[in-house]
């Protein structure tokens, strides 16, 4: 076995982390009250990747690794990882002396159970992340060996506490995992222990006095508060009743105002790079007016992405330049593609449609369509209104439709009863985890949400996606994804609009909560309050 470059990254990061810890003088104690919006249904992060669960789960459950803002792996429950030369054997060396909140020791059996019986079976994304894992050996209590059918380099990007939380075997074994009591009474190895959930009010976590990391956590108590009204959330932030609000729990307009008016409130866009949200339009490629790729390319060409970002999202975000987020550039998986002008080109789009033979009638209309909007708030309505206007200029008359979440999900992902749909997708830490589901023929799954609703199917692309998944060599992988991006820029079953940047609003007395790429979905073990 050979220590890969991942290992080097791990060791470097560890050195940096420990070095940093010794210099600063952190204060212990205090309560961190932060916004959780909306209230989560349960605390079962191993069954659901729902956002609000992500805000609380990683404080209670640890992952094998965390990731710093440069994407480097930080050891958490695993001290190191080795990958064999052929990429088919992955070995984790676990931290010793770790215990669950109920006092039982954490061992390799827990990891084996978590991956094989929980994540691979009931987690929404786990079956993809751990697809290639055929079996797991546990030679001793602190060594875990994953046997893979094919190399799966992307798997090492999905080991955070949010994406793959480690859960206690002794509390889940033999139970129906989805309805086990653990969902509302979480027991993890994390820096905070679950204490109380007052429905409609808050979830309270208290310091884990026996946390494996010496001297951590600094904070005595974390409280996630639920405030349904957006204006009240901003008021609570302004008054200092809550100290931290991520995922736009405080709207951009209020966040910018608070940042300007209050000395003790700041904003950041860090902490979302592993989530990688991308705003986009999905098209029905099987029926309706958008079956022709030329029309979809023309739409992509006409939209002024920068204008949308500036006027609707306060400039927080970057125009998309390909089917893949520019955040993948770090791993060589991003290239700029044609038909993605940042500022939009209505004339060129009109010419494309004229050349393709789509004639305007006497009212200047080439075609009409229904445009569905993601029902996640006002920003998306405004985005829809802007696109409606631009499409009018190129002779596509659209009517907007805004429904409630279950109705909308059913329409798009179950009935396919739509023509174009404004949406956003998490592209996650690797295209295999977040992007493949949008384009692969095997991801045309009636009734499954946030997959290939365009029903786009291309055997050539499928082969490339399959190859990209298994390729361990970075350069060859980069070449495969270049070809994938070319095909998607030509066929455009989905038009990417912009890479969203979510805002985190925080009170400046909260320190040390920003070192993880997981942002709000991290453990807050290093966070502390400065009075």
């Amino acid at each position, binding site marked *: 076995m050979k220590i890969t470059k991942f290992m080097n990254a791990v060791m470097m990061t560890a050195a940096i982390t420990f070095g940093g810890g010794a210099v600063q003088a952190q204060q212990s104690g205090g309560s961190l009250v932060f916004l959780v919006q909306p209230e989560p249904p349960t605390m079962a992060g191993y069954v659901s990747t729902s956002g609000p669960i992500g805000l609380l789960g990683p404080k209670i459950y640890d992952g094998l690794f965390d990731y710093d803002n440069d994407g480097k792996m930080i050891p958490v429950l695993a001290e190191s990882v080795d990958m064999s030369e052929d990429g088919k054997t992955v070995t984790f060396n676990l931290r010793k002396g770790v215990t669950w909140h109920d006092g039982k020791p954490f061992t390799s059996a827990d990891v084996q159970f978590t991956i094989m019986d929980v994540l691979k079976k009931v987690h929404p994304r786990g079956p993809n992340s751990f697809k290639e894992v055929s079996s797991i050996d546990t030679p001793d209590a602190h060594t875990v060996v994953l046997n893979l059918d094919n190399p799966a380099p992307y798997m090492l990007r999905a080991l955070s506490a949010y994406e793959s939380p480690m859960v206690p075997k002794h509390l889940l074994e033999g139970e129906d995992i989805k309805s086990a009591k653990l969902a509302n009474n979480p027991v993890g190895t994390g820096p905070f222990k679950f204490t109380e959930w007052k429905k409609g009010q808050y979830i309270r976590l208290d310091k884990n006095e026996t946390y494996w990391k010496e001297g951590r956590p600094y904070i005595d108590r974390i409280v996630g508060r639920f*405030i349904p009204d957006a204006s009240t959330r901003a*008021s609570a932030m302004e*008054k200092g009743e809550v100290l931290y609000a991520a995922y736009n729990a405080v709207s951009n307009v209020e966040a910018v105002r608070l940042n300007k008016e209050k000395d003790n409130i700041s904003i950041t866009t860090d902490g979302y790079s592993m989530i990688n949200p991308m705003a986009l339009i999905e098209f029905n490629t099987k029926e309706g007016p958008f079956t022709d790729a030329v029309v979809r390319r023309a739409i992509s060409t006409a939209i002024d992405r920068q204008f949308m970002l500036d006027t609707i999202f306060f400039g927080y975000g970057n125009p998309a330049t390909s089917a893949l987020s520019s955040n993948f550039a770090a791993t060589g998986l991003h290239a700029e593609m044609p038909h993605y002008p940042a500022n939009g080109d209505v004339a060129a789009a009109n010419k494309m449609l004229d050349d393709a033979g789509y004639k305007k009638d006497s009212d200047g209309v080439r075609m009409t369509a229904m445009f569905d909007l993601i029902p996640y708030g006002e920003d998306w309505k405004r985005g829809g209104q802007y696109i409606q206007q631009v499409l009018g200029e190129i002779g596509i008359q659209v009517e907007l439709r805004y429904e*409630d979440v279950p109705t909308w999900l059913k329409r798009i992902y179950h009935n396919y009863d739509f023509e174009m749909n404004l949406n956003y997708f998490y592209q996650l830490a690797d295209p295999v985890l977040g992007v493949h589901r949008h384009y692969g023929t095997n991801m045309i799954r009636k009734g499954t949400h946030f997959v290939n609703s365009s029903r786009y199917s291309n055997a050539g692309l499928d082969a490339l996606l399959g190859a990209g998944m298994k390729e361990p060599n970075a350069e060859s992988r980069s070449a495969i994804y270049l070809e994938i991006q070319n095909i998607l820029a030509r066929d455009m079953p989905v038009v990417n609009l912009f890479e969203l940047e979510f805002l985190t609003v925080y009170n400046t007395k909260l320190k040390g909560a920003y070192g993880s790429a997981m942002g709000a979905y991290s453990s807050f073990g290093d966070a502390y309050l400065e009075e």
Partner: protein
Amino acid sequence: MQGIPIILAIVVMNFFLLNLAEGDAVDVLAGEAGSATPEYMEKMRAKFGLDQPLPVQLAVYLKNVVQLDLGYSFRHEMPVHELIFDRFWATLLLMTSTIILAVGFGILLGLFAAVNLNTWKDALISVFALITYATPLFWVGLMMIIVFSIKNDWFPTSGMENSAAFYEGFDRVKDIAHHLVLPTITLSLFYLALYTRMMRASMLEQYGQDYVVTARAKGLSERRITFVHVLRNALLPVVTMAGVQVGALIGGSVIVESVFAWPGLGMLAFESLFARDLNLLLGIFLLSSVLVVAVNLVVDVIYCFLDPRIEVN
């Protein structure tokens, strides 16, 4: 006794009405998760009993209700009655304080306006009532927060208790009372206006009755006529209205609960509708209908005190 068939009819109607909505709890859960495999969703539907035909689902539900079992919320992984009773006290607290404040002040203001008919005092009260009645609740709530919480640090912005301190014993009671002030005032203002106008009209109507002329002819003082004779009769319609509105208060407080993050039933109902958590929603509706029936019984008893001519059989 008539209450029971009414409540059952409400349950059946609600059941079919709610099932008209597109999508189910599994769609929402899977949607929130970002992605889920079809096998996973099928398994969940089977587990929730959503794969059964509607009449079967209804029969199962009715059987459970008759046995006083409100079912299980699969979304929250908790029995419905636990979820509801957790929130019920918060709603009851807000509702009781609001009714006392609104009905109490409404009666006083209405009485005062009627006694001072067509003076500036009457006009002032009428204008006040009109403005508070016409102002949207959410706006009043937000203004309350801005003025009394942010500009003046008198009250907390939202919530039911201080979630950084976690007081216990008497301190906790004080803390909850402190949090209760703004939502109660906000919710009361709207109803206060209603009762004021109603009380004033009712008083004026009673003043015109023959018995008032008789009382005057007997030589009773105006004060005695107003407080002993007119007031008691004028209260009847106000009390009736208050009884009817208890039901509306549960639903109508959604806005106030949302603005002040008050953990009541209205908000729970609102959320469970969008989550298609039908068991929970049906449970809340059931409780509300029971509550309305119960309060109307109480109102009937109050009638007897106000008007000895009415008897309870």
